[in-house]
């Protein structure tokens, strides 16, 4: 191949590079961001997400016991007439020793 033909090949390559460069520039594709250092957060334990401070406008102290003119009670709920038997406490104490420890 003579020199002229090399020139043709090079011109084709050059024109394609120019074309791609222009396309890339004006196509609006994603640009590479400069990589940023990600802060290395210690993840040794997963703490409960604590609630953010809630803004409380004021916490007024009444210091007066309210008295109500109209008070009416419904019939007491059925379960309020059940009395825990000693075996219920024994069962609960067992539960504390077993299940209660599991939540730790």
């Amino acid at each position: 191949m003579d020199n002229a033909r090399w020139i043709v090949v090079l011109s084709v390559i050059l024109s394609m590079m120019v074309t791609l460069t222009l396309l890339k520039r004006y196509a609006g594709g994603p640009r590479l961001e400069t990589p940023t250092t990600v802060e290395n957060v210690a993840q040794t334990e997963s703490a409960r997400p604590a609630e953010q401070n809630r803004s409380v406008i004021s916490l007024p102290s009444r210091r007066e016991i309210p008295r109500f003119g109209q008070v009416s009670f419904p019939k007491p709920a059925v379960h309020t007439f059940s009395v825990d038997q000693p075996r219920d406490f024994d069962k609960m104490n067992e539960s504390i020793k077993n299940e209660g420890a599991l939540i730790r």
Partner: protein
Amino acid sequence: MLELFKLPEKISESKMRIADRRGFILYIVITVLLGLAIMAFALNTFKTGAVTQLSRNVDQNRLALLAQSANSEVIAMLKSQVNLNPSSQTFAKFRSVFPTAGSPPPALPVTVDLISNFEPQKTVQLAKVGYNLKIRSSAVLTVFRRSSLNSMSAYNGYIDVISKAWREGAGEITMEAHERRDVRLIDLRHTLDKYALFVKNYSNDYNNTSRRLIVDGIKNVGTHDISRIFIGTDNYPTCVDPRKDLWFDIYYDDHKDLQGFAQIFGGNNLKEFPLAAETPADYPKFNRLFFESNKPFTSLGGVSVGMFVMNKQVTNEYERVINFAADACMTAAGVATEPYRVAAALKTKCQKAIQKLGNPNAYAQMMCQDFVDKAAGGNYANCEEFKKLLVTCQQNWTYRWGYTDAASLWKVDTPGRAPQDSTMPDRYAGLSNISMGSGNYGPYMSEYREVSGGAQYNPERWHVGVMQQFYGSDNDTPVLIEGKAYMRFFKLAYLDEFTATVPFFNPAPVNIRVITSKYLRKDKTGSFLTTPLTAELASNLYSDKLMKSRAIDDLSLNSLWGEKIKCYNGDGQQVEYDPMQYPAPIIEKPAQPAGSNVPATRFGRAVDFRNASWNYVSSTDFLAERAPGDGKLLYLDGFMYIMAGDLDLSGVTHFQGKGLIYIARGNCRLGNLERLNDQPTSDSLRIYLRQGDFIINPAVDDVVIEGSLTAFYDDPQGSSDPLQQGSIILSDRTRVTIYGNLLVDSLDLEASGNSGLAENGVLHIIHDPAVYNAAVTLNGTPLDPYHVSIGPVKTSFSFRAGGEES
């Protein structure tokens, strides 16, 4: 010719090169254009596919995001309505799980459609920016477990929230987000709520005058709702007294207007013992009698005058008469009289007198002769003249008695309980006058302080004073008092003095002075003081058939209220308890269903930990999460279990929400703590200490706590070790007000180490109607006894992408 056609060589070569270059340029141009065309085509194809793919990705992401947003909105809506918006469907549907009077507990598992085909508005608004999207949500509550305890109405469940999002008209892209949240449902009411005060152990402070306890029950007179007070006697002092009860000293100033007072004493005017007309004006009067009466000795029955043969007042008078007779003999015989003698010496004196006079017909000698013949040492029972004196006594004695309170007999405001000055005369001296008792105590105290069986006969008996105010600040609020609780008042009694002529051989006037009916313990028999009478002395209701001054201590404390008390019995039936009966129908055990026999020692609130909405390993975790920021506001959310305290709430001043804080082990420190929102609100706080004490912050005085405070030591229950008893340490405060109720193993108002109240301090318990029954209606606003906790964590989360919605 050939040469003619033959071009010059140079010309033809150059022309040929030109022709070659033209082709070459064209070739380059075509090549470039072809390259550009290929590139453009490739780019177009690539872009079209990418854009389509991208738009689909964007759609899916957007729909997924919106579906999640919809789920969040639904959860937020449920959370905002489930406890705070009684008018909402959500509120009602969650509560439909709980059994009511008309509907039994549901068969589990049960599902409740909370919302269906719901369009979450906020999410839709977000979605409609640029796209026309459709979003529909639904939520279903599934309840699968009930508390294992009958006394605890609580359920475990979960909510499934499903939100679907799709583009209107492009139904081939649908995203469905599903999430699940744990739910705990609890009815906070408990059988102990009806108690304004529940104390299991014995306390000697119930008549304390320097540390006062005021209990204001719920004011709902006329209905069957009434506050209860349980006063226990666990760990009663070791003593041989068969009665190991508690006595509450009534006080005229406090109780005179109660119906029971008037019924028992026939009115509420103060009376006084009558005195003879010739009594000096400055003679002390006892004018604090609620009831006063008298009977002739002969009408008492059961006792005889023979029981008085050794009585000082009678024998002294007889000795005076006989001395006088002996002196008369000696005077008549013209010899000097001898000094005053008694008993055997008097007999010798009489013998000398008879010998000197020697006139058997003289009346004086006859009396002396009778004495010499019949007297046996200090016992004159066989003397005929003495018998005449006894008969005269029998005919002239008047037995007087009246009922009064402890404060009229002892200086109950002073630590030593010295007798009141008004009890100095013999007629009022039967109970408290030190000269009638032993040591520095009057008969009543000394009898019970007497050591028997290695311990005082019963120390509780001599703790006299003024009972704590169980009927409210104004003594106008009924309560039902359970336990071995008896009211106590006192009888002062005596045989009144008289002057009468005795038909001796030589009739002579005698003056028998007042015979004090002093107190004698029941087990000391053989005296007229402890011999049952046939006559009934009681003013009303109770029984009094003993001559001694005494305590009337076998009337139920409830009889002070004076009317039948409407209440619910242990089975929930409406009943009337009538305290105005005798013997006293005391209620020994806390209310419980028929057939149940749980002693007060074993009362408490057992819980099923699997119903806890929050579990905390430590109180630090609890405070960090429930009282964030400056820590002054506590957010309650149902049944919250803390494994180990101490829980320091002394920095928390307010709370919001509704909950039960259950601390398995450790104390709880409290300062001022009240609701953030004014009542009527369903907000309420219950703190239950399973192994600990409440400790009032010593840095704050005049403490106000709104909440139900329970410290019932468990594991073991009923321990005699003070370290294993739940109590409230009052930290020497002057005033502690609990607007709720107080349930403890032991309650010491006056105690060493600053753990009681300060002197003249007051512990005021006001039974909050919202604690008594959390479903109360206050001023027309019904409160909600239930609390639903929706977990903050998604226990399950999934997406489903598909089509078909349009």
